[in-house]
């Protein structure tokens, strides 16, 4: 029995084909990297993802028993401690990752969106943490919410985002903002896979680089599509 060919108007076919065109499997999950990916600074991106996984994992356990659980059981308090320290580790490694990527000028070679998604992830992570702090249901939450309200009210955000409303803040913290962070991280990582890790600066051209040039004529090589894929470069798998 033969399968009828899918029409070119099929949304499913078009979605699949454009996804596979943009990120074929060997590009989505390559088993090699350019030889210049050889520094400890490169582990801080994956460390940020790892910290996010631990945050979400410990957060899921906390939400299984509800927001008051950690106040009256030792196990709950321990899971809360893991959650808090994972957040500290997350910001720690993410900022080191940011510093590394800045000093590599990692937006080069058509990688502007990689930088943008990364920066926005950091900026969304800050209110995600804030909603967590005001959801603690302890003195810290009381103080932070009564202080933060002034900053948010001053720019009108307090009209629809009320840090003293526990129900709203808990909802944002457990669902909406983590979903936003995860979506941004996925976009960020897919863009890194698409464009590859930024190559090193070419030595000897540093003095020329500061000069502003006329509009750079984009060659196919600079249009965001990398050169030969790892599979065709002859590198051992």
């Amino acid at each position: 029995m033969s399968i009828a060919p899918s029409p070119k108007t099929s949304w499913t076919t078009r979605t699949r084909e454009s996804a596979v065109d943009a990120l074929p499997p060997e590009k989505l999950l390559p088993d090699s990297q350019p030889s210049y990916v050889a520094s400890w600074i490169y582990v801080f991106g994956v460390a940020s993802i790892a910290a996010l996984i631990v945050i979400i994992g410990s957060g899921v356990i906390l939400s299984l028993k509800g927001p008051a659980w950690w106040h009256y059981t030792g196990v709950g308090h321990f899971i809360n401690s893991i959650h808090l320290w994972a957040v500290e580790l997350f910001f720690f490694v993410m900022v080191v990752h940011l510093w590394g990527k800045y000093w590599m000028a990692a937006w080069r070679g058509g990688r502007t969106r990689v930088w943008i998604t990364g920066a926005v992830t950091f900026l969304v992570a800050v209110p995600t943490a804030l909603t967590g702090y005001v959801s603690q249901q302890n003195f810290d939450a009381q103080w932070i919410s009564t202080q933060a309200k002034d900053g948010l009210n001053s720019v009108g955000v307090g009209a629809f985002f009320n840090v003293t409303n526990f129900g709203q803040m808990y909802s944002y913290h457990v669902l909406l903002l983590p979903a936003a962070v995860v979506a941004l991280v996925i976009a960020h990582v897919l863009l890194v896979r698409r464009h590859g890790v930024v190559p090193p600066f070419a030595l000897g051209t540093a003095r020329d680089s500061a000069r502003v040039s006329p509009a750079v004529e984009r060659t196919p090589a600079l249009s965001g599509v990398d050169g030969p894929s790892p599979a065709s470069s002859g590198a051992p798998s």
Partner: protein
Amino acid sequence: MSVLGAVFDLNHPAHVVHWHFIELSVANIVVIALMLAVFAAAIILPFPGAARRRRSES
């Protein structure tokens, strides 16, 4: 309710460092110093697998 763990009890008022108009807790200074140290170490320390990468280049 017993607190599981807590080898070191940090539930006492923080020690604070004042420098001109800057006022930072010791804990925050430690975190910031560690971040700078870890960044420096990350870009200075050699990454393992150099021999394997040299072999793949040749």
